[in-house]
C-alpha cells in the first residue's frame, strides 16, 4: 500500500467485462520528497502506473493504492488486475526525523 497522486485517467472503448463498475486512473507514486511537500510538481522519479479505481478518484487527489496479487481480492471472480486504489486521502502527515 503506497501513497500516489492521480495525474490522469485512461478510457477504454473495449475492455474485459470484469472491469465494469470502475475506471482506470494514472497514478504518480509519491516518494519521501513529495510527501514532505518539497516537490511542488508531485511527480517523483518512480514510474507512473495505471490502477483500477471504483472510489471516484479525480485528478489531483492523493490516494492509497495496492500493487500485486492482492489487488484482485475485492472481486469475487478472477481479473487480471495488479494495481487498485483502496482509499482517497483526506489528510496525511509525513515527518521523518531531522538529521
Amino acid at each position, binding site marked *: *500500500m*503506497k*501513497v500516489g497522486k492521480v495525474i490522469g485517467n485512461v478510457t477504454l472503448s473495449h475492455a474485459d467485462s470484469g472491469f465494469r463498475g470502475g475506471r482506470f486512473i494514472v497514478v504518480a*507514486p*509519491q*516518494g*519521501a520528497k513529495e*510527501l514532505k511537500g518539497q516537490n511542488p510538481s508531485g511527480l*517523483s522519479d*518512480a514510474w507512473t502506473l495505471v490502477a483500477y479505481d471504483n*472510489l*471516484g478518484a479525480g485528478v489531483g487527489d492523493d490516494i*492509497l493504492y*495496492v500493487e*500485486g*496479487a*492482492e*489487488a*484482485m*481480492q*475485492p*472481486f*469475487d471472480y478472477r481479473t487480471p488486475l495488479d494495481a*487498485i486504489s*483502496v*482509499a*482517497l*486521502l*483526506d*489528510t*496525511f*502527515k*509525513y*515527518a*521523518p*526525523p531531522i538529521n
Partner: protein
Amino acid sequence: MILARIDGHAVTSIGHPSLKAQKIVLCTPIDEHGVDAGSPFAALDPIGAGQHARVFITTDGSWTQDTVHDDTSPIRNQVMGLIDTL
C-alpha cells in the same frame, strides 16, 4: 517482513470497507543501522505505534484479510511489532 520507522499517518473517509476504523501509518523502510532504505509506504497499525517508532511490518495479504475479518480486503501491510533493540 520489513523493518521500518513510523513517520506519519493518513486519514481517509472513502476507501475499501476493510479500512474502516483502522489506523493508517506512513512508514519509511530502514536498514539494520536504522538508516532510510527505500521509499515510504502505508500500513495498518493495530498496535498503536508512535511517531518515529521502529517497527516490523508484514506484507502478507492473507494475514491481513484474517485480522480485518474481510476476505475481500486488498490490504497487505500491517505493523506486527515494535522493535526494542536492533
